[in-house]
């Protein structure tokens, strides 16, 4: 057993070479900035209350982001532990140091694979009093390595209600490490600060491995991964289980017998083969309604405020200083204010979404939803809980991409993020309705319904395509899922988590959204031809770009600059497609689509021309393309935050290729039908 020193806690690591494996002391995004503070890592099994503890000790001083070079989310923050300032890292939940997912792998790497000088100065292993035997396994494994270790025991109150009392002193004696009872959901963590401060002051590792615990490979980074086990490792695991069993026996006192409690009674319905899916659909319906309908009035009010009083006031001010009607006014009002306005309209939507996610996670229902939908989602190689972001996507893709955070596995998150854009969001619905009403009359409803069916087909098709190509290595594991007990979500924690995720979204996505809206304004404002075009907008850079791109869509029957221009604008936001048409056709509003000379008539004339008379298949092809290609720049920004630039660009390419291919197929096959 290794007992080497972890070194003084304020050692200078400035000269340390960049390690080949992750460390807690980098200076890139998602890592703890190296500033001399000791680094404390929080580790623990899923559902033990580790993130609640992280929130409790860091308060508002924290950030959440992907660990550099990975797509695994890690929270980092500052903790005033008594008189000592420490940096805290909230490691991904892990049942052990034998990873079966990239998230667990990162935890393993940061704790025992990184260069010893780059490992955390202290590890707080969080265990649950209600489930001590299972949650201690990770602690037993961590104790085999030369790390300072403190155990933080949560859920003592819940255990007490179930007749379980854990003697922390006896547990500490059995394992040879300090054990502190905490209640992070109620903010009771002060005892932990003192123990952590004391442990950090020690030059030698606090942890002394329990007698007969398996020896770690001292000084060696080799730790078993996944299925690379042999009999020796399994025997070592058995010895750890024995250590844990003895510690539990020494520290746990039970009064009475376990009985069915309210959590089990709720589960009789929530996981029932018939009632469970009904409950799940009801919950999803509620989530969908709340993220769209409740947010909509607030979004409209914000939009009205920015496009009305704010824009009007700014125009008046600019007019007063002689800049009325100038490019400066256009840039500020139509570019900057419009861009910021678009970003702000997402705030209520995202806040509601993040809050609902936190409620579902914190209450314990999300795990049940995963059980109920597991079989369905495995058709595309995803676990059941991927259903949630995909359902949310039918309201808006932006929060849906962020909702993929409910997936514990980074590869599953990646696949789900790539599939979310194929869910038909409500913004696309406005275009479906306009176009269907203009072209299909009483069958408009059937066409709109067909678009939703096609959306589901595209999700399945793209999922299978990705699973058989770019994500071939992604395993499909049968469901084995720990179900946390139900609990009432704590408002303080919900608010903290919602704000943390919302602010992270605004920081990452805000710049991209505003910059793109300004760019589109600039393209529309710059005239590149001398007015020979029949319509003024066609002479702008935007119009010329649309004209240049139009031939790409000729095989799909809508190779016209109006349609292409609308798709270019739709890249920014699908809500703008209709207004773009109104602008390019020089009409004010859609109004009566069947009025001679109105928008509907203009659209019909152009589709008639571009499709060679095959209007119906061309319009259907246009709708199909609209469904399949990039939803909006805000979704792209959210994707970039979740999966990085490279995968986002791969996603854009996939969406375009799939949308174009299906659109062309629809038109080419459709025009053969008399």
């Amino acid at each position, binding site marked *: 057993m290794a007992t080497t020193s972890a070194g003084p806690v304020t050692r200078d690591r400035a000269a340390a070479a960049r390690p080949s494996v992750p460390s807690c002391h980098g200076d890139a995004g998602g890592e703890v900035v190296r500033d001399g503070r000791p680094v404390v890592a929080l580790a623990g099994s899923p559902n033990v209350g580790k993130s609640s503890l992280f929130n409790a000790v860091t308060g508002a001083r924290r950030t959440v982001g992907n660990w550099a070079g990975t797509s695994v989310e890690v929270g980092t923050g500052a903790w005033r532990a008594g008189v000592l300032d420490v940096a805290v890292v909230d490691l991904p939940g892990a049942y052990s140091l*034998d990873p079966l997912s990239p998230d667990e792998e990162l935890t393993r790497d940061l704790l025992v694979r990184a260069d010893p000088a780059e490992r955390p100065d202290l590890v707080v292993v969080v265990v649950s009093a209600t489930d001590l035997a*299972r949650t201690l396994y990770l602690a037993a494994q961590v104790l085999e390595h030369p790390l300072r270790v403190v155990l933080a025991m949560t859920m003592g109150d819940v255990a007490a209600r179930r007749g379980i009392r854990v003697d922390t002193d006896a547990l500490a004696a059995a394992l040879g490490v300090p054990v502190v009872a905490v209640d992070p959901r109620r903010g009771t963590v002060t005892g932990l600060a003192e123990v952590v401060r004391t442990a950090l002051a020690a030059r030698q590792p606090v942890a002394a491995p329990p007698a007969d615990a398996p020896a770690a490979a001292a000084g060696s980074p080799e730790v078993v991964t996944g*299925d690379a086990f042999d009999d020796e490792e*399994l025997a070592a695991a058995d010895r750890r289980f024995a250590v844990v069993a003895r510690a539990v026996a020494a520290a746990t006192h039970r009064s009475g017998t376990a009985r069915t409690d309210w959590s089990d009674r709720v589960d009789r319905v929530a996981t*029932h083969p018939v009632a469970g899916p009904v409950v799940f659909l009801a919950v999803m319906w509620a989530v969908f309604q709340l993220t769209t309908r409740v947010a909509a009035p607030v979004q409209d009010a914000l939009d009205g405020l920015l496009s009305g009083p704010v824009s009007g006031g700014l125009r008046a001010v600019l007019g007063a200083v002689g800049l009325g009607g100038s490019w400066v006014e256009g840039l500020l009002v139509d570019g900057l204010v419009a861009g910021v306005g678009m970003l702000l309209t997402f705030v209520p939507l995202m806040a509601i979404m993040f809050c609902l996610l936190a409620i579902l996670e914190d209450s314990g229902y999300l795990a049940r939803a995963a059980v109920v939908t597991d*079989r369905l989602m495995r058709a595309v190689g995803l676990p059941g809980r991927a259903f949630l972001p995909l359902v949310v996507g039918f309201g808006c893709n932006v929060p849906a991409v962020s909702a993929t955070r409910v997936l514990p596995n980074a590869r599953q998150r990646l696949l789900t993020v790539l599939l979310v854009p194929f869910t038909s969001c409500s913004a696309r619905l406005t275009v479906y309705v306009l176009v269907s009403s203009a072209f299909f009359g009483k069958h408009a409803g059937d066409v709109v319904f067909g678009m939703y069916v096609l959306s589901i087909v595209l999700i399945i098709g793209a999922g299978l395509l990705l699973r058989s190509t770019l994500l071939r290595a992604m395993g499909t*594991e*049968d*469901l084995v899922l720990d179900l946390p007990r139900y609990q009432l979500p704590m408002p303080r924690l919900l608010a903290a988590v919602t704000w943390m995720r919302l602010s992270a979204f605004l920081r990452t996505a805000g710049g991209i959204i505003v910059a793109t809206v300004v760019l589109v304004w600039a393209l529309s404002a710059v005239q590149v031809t001398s007015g020979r075009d029949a319509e003024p907008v066609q002479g702008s850079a935007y119009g010329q770009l649309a004209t240049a791109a139009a031939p790409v869509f000729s095989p799909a029957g809508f190779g016209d600059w109006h349609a292409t221009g609308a798709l270019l604008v739709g890249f920014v936001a699908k809500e703008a497609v209709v207004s773009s048409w109104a602008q390019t056709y020089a009409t004010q509003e859609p109004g009566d689509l069947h009025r001679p000379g109105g928008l509907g008539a203009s659209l019909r004339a152009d589709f008639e021309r571009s499709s060679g008379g095959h209007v119906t298949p061309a319009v259907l092809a246009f709708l199909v393309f609209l469904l399949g290609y990039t939803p909006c720049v805000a979704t792209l920004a959210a994707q970039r935050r979740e999966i990085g630039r490279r995968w986002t660009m791969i996603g854009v390419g996939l969406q375009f290729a799939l949308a174009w291919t299906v659109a062309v197929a629809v038109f080419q096959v459709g025009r053969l039908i008399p």
Partner: protein
Amino acid sequence: MTLASAPLGVPVLLGHADLPPGRRLRLAELGLRAGATVTVLRRTAGGGRIVGVGDARVAVARRVLLTVPAAPVEPGPRPGPQG
């Protein structure tokens, strides 16, 4: 008998799961290991089961249940299912 065919509400003793070592260890980490006593509590959609491991609850897919041998802990009258 395997966990897939274990009666509901009856404590059963587990044998070694017929799974790759890594997956077997994960089951063990969740409390489903050889020598442990567990109780199958409920059926779920898709043929899975909710298994009671002490005070914890674990949802397990049918294909995994089929790999885990199980035997009743004690003979005699069986209590009714919990769900």
